[in-house]
C-alpha cells in the first residue's frame, strides 16, 4: 500500500469517528462527575430500585445532551438486557397529545411484538399506556420516555405530560421521563399541577472548556492501535499530529474557533473540514489544514452576498443607505429610484440604467435577503410600492464595497461621506 492509500484509510477512520457521537462523547464519560455518570446513576437507580424519576437535560444546542443520553441508554441496555424499553418522542412531531399517545403505543407494541392498531382512540391509548406501565412494573421492566424538544410539549393543556407524570405516581410502575430541551426555562413552562408532579432533576450541559477541547481533539484525531494501518505509519502520523497540537499557532486557531462558539458540535464540524482538507500525498495533517478549515465554517453570508452583487445593485444599496441616513420614514422602490437619479444627476456617473433594469436588480436584492419588506401588509401590491428596509448595516456595506472587485470609486466616496 502506498502512502496515499494509507492516508485515505486514516482519513476514513477519523471521519467515521467524528461522525459517531457515541465515540466522541465516550471521552466525556470517562471524566469523573460528568453528566454521563450522573444521568446513568439516575436511570439505573430506577432500573435497580424500581422507582420513578423525571429528569430534564438542559443546555445550549450542540453540547451533547442527546448524545450523552444515547450513550447512557446504550450502556444500560447492555448491562440490563431485556429490562429497559425506550420510547422516543420529539416535540416537533408529537406535541399533539393524541398523536403522542399513539406513538407511544406504537413504539411499545413494536418493542414487545404486540399487535398495534392505528384506529385506537385517545381513551384506549391512555388505557393501554396505564396497563403497559403496570405490566412493565410487575415484570421489573423500566420504560424510558425520551421527550426531545421538551419545551414544545408544554404547549396547550399538557395532557400528555400530566397523564404520563401522574401515571408514574401509581404504585407499580417503573419509568423514567427524560426531557431534553435547549430552553433553560423549560421547567417554568410547566403548568402548576404538572410541575408539582415533576421530579425536577436537572442536568445542565455546558460548553466545554478549552483544555477539554485540546484533549478531545487528541481523543478524536490520534489513530488507534487496533486499526488496519501499519504501525510505522500510525506512529509517524500521531507524532506529527502531536507536534501540531502542541504548536502555539494551532492553539490560536482553536481559540479563534472557541471565541464565537465553544460547543462540541462546532468543534466536530471544524475537525471534519480540516480532515477533508488533508493532503493525501504527504499522508498527514498539517497546520494549514486547520487554518483553512476555520473560515470555511465561520461564514459571513451577508458579506459574501455583497461580493457577488452587480454594480447597479451596489448603487441601489448605497441609495437606500443615504435615504436611511436622511431618516425618511419609509422608502420604496420609487423613492430609491429618485435618489438614484439625483446621484446620477449630481455626479454624472456613467452607469445609468433604465427603470425596469433597476427593478430587476431591486428584486434580486430582495431575493438575496439584503433588503426586505418592512411588513407583511400589502401582499397584493406590486413590489415597487411596498416599503422596504435595508438589512445590512453601514459597516458591512462599507466593508463590502471595499472588497468588491469592480466597485466604482464614487460609491466609496459617497459612503465615506455618509459615515
Amino acid at each position, binding site marked *: 500500500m502506498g502512502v496515499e492509500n494509507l492516508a485515505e484509510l486514516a482519513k476514513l477512520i477519523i471521519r467515521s469517528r467524528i461522525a459517531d457521537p457515541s465515540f466522541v462523547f465516550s471521552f466525556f464519560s470517562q471524566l469523573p462527575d460528568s453528566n454521563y455518570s450522573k444521568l446513568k446513576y439516575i436511570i439505573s437507580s430506577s432500573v435497580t430500585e424500581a422507582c420513578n424519576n423525571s429528569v430534564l437535560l438542559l443546555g445550549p444546542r450542540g453540547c451533547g445532551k442527546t448524545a450523552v443520553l444515547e450513550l447512557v441508554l446504550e450502556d444500560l441496555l447492555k448491562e440490563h438486557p431485556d429490562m429497559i424499553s425506550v420510547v422516543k418522542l420529539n416535540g416537533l412531531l408529537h406535541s399533539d397529545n393524541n398523536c403522542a399517545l399513539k406513538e407511544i403505543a406504537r413504539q411499545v407494541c413494536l418493542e414487545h411484538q404486540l399487535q398495534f392498531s392505528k384506529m385506537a382512540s385517545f381513551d384506549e391509548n391512555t388505557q*393501554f399506556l396505564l396497563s403497559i406501565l403496570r405490566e412493565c412494573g410487575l415484570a421489573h421492566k423500566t420504560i424510558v420516555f425520551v421527550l426531545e424538544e421538551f419545551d414544545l410539549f408544554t404547549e396547550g393543556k399538557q*395532557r400528555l405530560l400530566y397523564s404520563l407524570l401522574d401515571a408514574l405516581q401509581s404504585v407499580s410502575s417503573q419509568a423514567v421521563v427524560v426531557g431534553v430541551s435547549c430552553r433553560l426555562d423549560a421547567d417554568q413552562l410547566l403548568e402548576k399541577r404538572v410541575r*408539582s408532579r415533576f421530579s425536577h432533576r436537572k442536568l445542565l450541559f455546558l460548553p466545554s472548556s478549552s483544555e477539554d477541547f485540546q484533549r478531545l481533539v487528541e481523543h478524536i484525531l490520534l489513530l488507534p492501535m487496533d486499526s488496519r494501518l501499519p504501525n510505522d505509519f500510525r506512529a509517524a502520523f500521531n507524532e506529527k499530529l502531536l507536534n501540531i497540537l502542541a504548536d502555539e499557532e494551532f492553539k490560536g486557531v482553536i481559540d479563534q474557533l472557541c471565541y464565537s462558539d465553544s460547543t462540541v458540535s462546532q468543534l466536530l464540524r471544524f475537525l471534519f473540514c480540516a480532515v477533508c482538507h488533508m493532503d493525501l500525498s504527504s499522508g498527514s495533517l498539517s497546520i494549514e489544514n486547520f487554518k483553512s478549515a476555520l473560515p470555511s465554517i465561520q461564514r459571513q453570508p451577508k458579506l459574501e452576498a455583497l461580493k457577488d452583487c452587480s454594480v447597479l445593485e451596489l448603487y441601489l444599496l448605497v441609495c437606500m443607505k443615504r435615504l436611511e441616513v436622511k431618516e425618511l420614514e419609509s422608502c420604496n422602490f420609487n423613492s430609491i429610484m429618485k435618489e438614484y437619479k439625483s446621484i446620477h444627476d449630481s455626479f454624472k456617473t456613467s452607469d445609468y440604467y433604465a427603470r425596469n433594469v433597476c427593478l430587476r436588480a431591486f428584486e434580486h436584492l430582495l431575493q438575496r435577503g439584503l433588503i426586505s419588506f418592512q411588513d407583511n401588509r400589502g401582499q397584493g401590491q406590486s413590489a415597487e410600492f411596498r416599503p422596504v428596509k435595508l438589512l445590512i448595516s453601514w459597516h458591512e456595506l462599507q466593508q463590502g464595497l471595499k472588497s468588491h472587485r469592480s466597485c466604482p470609486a464614487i460609491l466609496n466616496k459617497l459612503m465615506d461621506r455618509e459615515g
Partner: protein
Amino acid sequence: MAETQQMKKSKTPSKGTPRAKQRISSDHLIAPQTPQSATPAAINLRRSHRLSAATPESHPVLSTCDTPQSVTRTTKNLKNPTSILPTTISITPASPQPTESRRKRKFQEKSVASAERKKDLTSGKCRRADNKVKQKVYYKKVVYDSGEFSAGHDVYVKKRSDASSDDEDPEVEECRVCFKPAGRRVMIECDDCLNGFHLKCLSPPLRAVPEGDWMCNYCVAKKNGEMVEFAEPPAGKKRARTAREKLLSSDLWAARIESLWKEVDGTYWFRARWYIIPEETAVGRQPHNLRRELYRTNDFADVEMESIIRHCSVMSPKDFANAGSEGDDVFICEYEYDIQWHNFRRIAEIDNNEDDGERVDDDDDDDDNDWSSCDEFDSDSKEDVVYEHEKKTRLSHASLLHPVAANSRKGRIFGLQKIGAKKIPEHLRCHKQTDLEKAKSKLLLATLPKSLPCRDREMDEITTFIKGAICDEQCLGRCLYVHGVPGTGKTMSVLAVMRNLKSEVDAGSIRPYCFVEINGLKLASPENIYSVIYEGLTGHRVGWKKALNFLNARFSNENKCGKDTRPCILLIDELDLLVTRNQAVLYNILDWPTKPNSKLIVIGIANTMDLPEKLLPRISSRMGIQRLCFGPYNYQQLQEIISSRLKGIDAFEKVAIEFASRKVAAVSGDARRALEICRRAAEVADYRAKKTALSGSDASGKVVAGMADVEAAIKEMFQAPHIQVIRSSCKLSKIFLAAMVYELYKTGMGETTFEKLAMAVSCFCANNGETFPGYDMLLKVGCKLGECRLLLCEAGTRHKLQKLQLNYPNDDVTFALKDSKDLPWLAKYI
C-alpha cells in the same frame, strides 16, 4: 468443622431468623361464614395431625371455628400428640362413593343471597344448587377429609393418583442426625438445605434458635468444598421425606384452590391454579432463588378433591418475613410465571388485600378463561353472566380469527402477558438495601404512606359529608368542592376516606354505594365524561350522547324503577378542565344531584379557589355551597410528613429535614416538592457514597444525607441555571450580553435592536483589543442566546432590525459576568 456457624446469607434478605421447626395445623385459614357447619363424627386419622413441640397446638384451630364439632376434633387430635402414626391409607383413586364412612364431607352451601351479591366476585361461577339436579353445585367451602378447604387455600396435590402409599408419614420431619421426629424438642432449620436438626443433636449443641440466618455444618462444609456424607439412617428405617421435600423435588404439586364444586355424579372437584418450583421453569433454578420459593402459574386444571393431601401455605415475601413459626409447609411466592410465554411477573401487591383484589382477580379470570375454559362457560353460563359471557366468546372468536391489537379496547387483555421478565433479575434479591436506598424508596411519591398525617380535619369533614349524604334517604343536592394548590393532598385524602368507607361497607355498618373516579385531564374531551361515568356505573361502554341520555334517565327518573338504588359518589379531579364554552357539561353533572331520587354525590377537586365564581351563576349556585380548602402545608406539617415516612430509617439528619421543609413551606407548601427534595438529597448522598466506594478509598462508614445534600437538591430544583450557562459560554456571547446590559442601561429602555447592539460590541472590541468577528457571526451568537432563552429575540431573518430583550434580570447577568477570568475588562462596562 464440627462447629455450628452462623452465617450471613445474602440470598434471603427477607428472612430475619431461622424458623424453629414447629408443627401446627395449617388449616387455620379463617372464618367459616355459615355457622351451621356440622363436621363429620368420624375423624379421619389418615394422617396424623401435625404436632408442635414448642407451640401449643390448639390456637390456630380454635380460632378458626365457630363450630363445636371441629373443636372436638382438634381436641381428639391433641390427645395423641406424640403419636406419629404412619397410618397408611390406601387411597382409592377417584372413588366416587361419598357414602364411604371414612370420608364424610360436610358442605356449606353458599346462600343464594350471598351468591347474588358475589356474582362478580367469583366471575359467575356460583350456581344455585336447587336449580337442577344435573348440574354442578358450587361451594365456598368444603370440609373434606377433616380439612376445611375453601377457595383461596393452598394445598398439596398428589402427582398421580395411583402413586399411592408412601409408607412414611409425609407430615412430620425428622431430625437429620438422630432420625427421630421433633417430639418435644425444638428443631432448627438450615437455611440452605432446609433439613431439620434437633438443637441437641448439633455439635456443639445450641441452646436457642440463633438470630439471623443459620446454616448447618454440612452445608458450611459443602460451601468450603468438602465432601460430606449425611449421617446414614439407622438400618431398617428409611428416611422419611416430608411433603415439602417431595414438592421441592417435584414429586408433589402445590396448587391454589380457585373454586370448589360437586359434580353431577357426586364427586367433589376443585379448580386448581398450579404453583411450580423454580426447577420447572424455562430458565431453571436461578442462583438467587430462595429454597422455599414457588411461582404461581397461570395454568389451571380441574382436579378431584381426592388428590388433595393437605394444606400448605404460600405467602408473599412480606408475610413470609413476618411468619415466625408456621411449620414446614410454608413457601414464598413473589412472582407469577406465565407458562405460555415463559416469563415472570411480580404479583401485584394489591392482589393480596382482599377488598381491592376483586377487580384484579376479575382481570385475571378474564384472560385465563379465554385460554382454557371457554367450553365450560358455554355449558353453564346463566343469565347473570350473560354479559360477561358474551364478551368472552366475542373475544375468543376474535382471537381465533385474527389477532387483536393490544392497544385497542377489545384486545387489551391480549398479548400483555407477553411482557414479562424472562428471568428474574438478580440484583433485586442479592442486593441488601442500605438505609439511604430504603429512604429513597420510602420517599417516592408512588409509595402510599400508611398514615396521612396533618389532614385529619379535612378528612373528617369529607367523611362526615359523604356519610351524611349516603345515609340520607333522599340525598338531595350533595356537592362538595375541594380546592387547594397542587401537592396538598386533596385527591389522596378523598381516596383515603373512600378506602376507609369501603372497609366500613364491608363490615356492614354503611350501606353499599358505587364510586366513580374521573380525572378531567385524562379525558379526551369534556363530553367524554358521560361515557366514563356510565361505564363506571354499569360496565357498558357507549358513546357520550347515548350515555348522557341514559344518565339523564337514571338520575332524573321520578318513579323509582331503577334496579340499582345504591347511592353513587362521583369524584372529579381537575374539575376546571370540564369547563366548556357553554359550560353544559358541568351544568349537567351538577344538576343531577338536585333531582329527587338521583342519589348522586359529586366531589369536585380543582386548584383554583374561585372556580365557582368564574362560572355561570346557575352553576356556581349548584356547586359553591359546600367547600373545603386544603391550605398549603406549613413547615411543621411537612416535617411531620417526611419524618413519618422515614420512621425507623436512619438516613437523614434532623436539621436537613427541617431545612427542606422550611424551604418548601416558604415557597409553595407542596408536599410532593418536599418529598422530592428529600429524595433528591438522598440520591445525592447515595451517589456520593457509591462513588467513594468505587474509588476504593477508606470506607468512611455510614453516609447520611445532610444539610449540604439538601442544599444541593434545593439548588437544583429552584435555581434557574442561567448564571452557570452565562459563565461557561464563549467569549463572544459574554461580550454580547455585557453590551446588551450596557446598552439597556444607557438607553433606559427594555429592548434594543441588533444594530445598536452591534455598534456597542464593535466599540467594546476596538477599545479592548479583541477582534470584532463581523455582524453575521454576532447575529448567530445572538440567535443562539435567544434559543436558550437568555435573550428574547425576533427571528434572525430580521437581521439588523431584530429586537432584543433580556429574559433574566440585568443584575443576574451583571453578577454572572462581573469577574470572568477570560474577559476581565467587561467589569468596567457593567
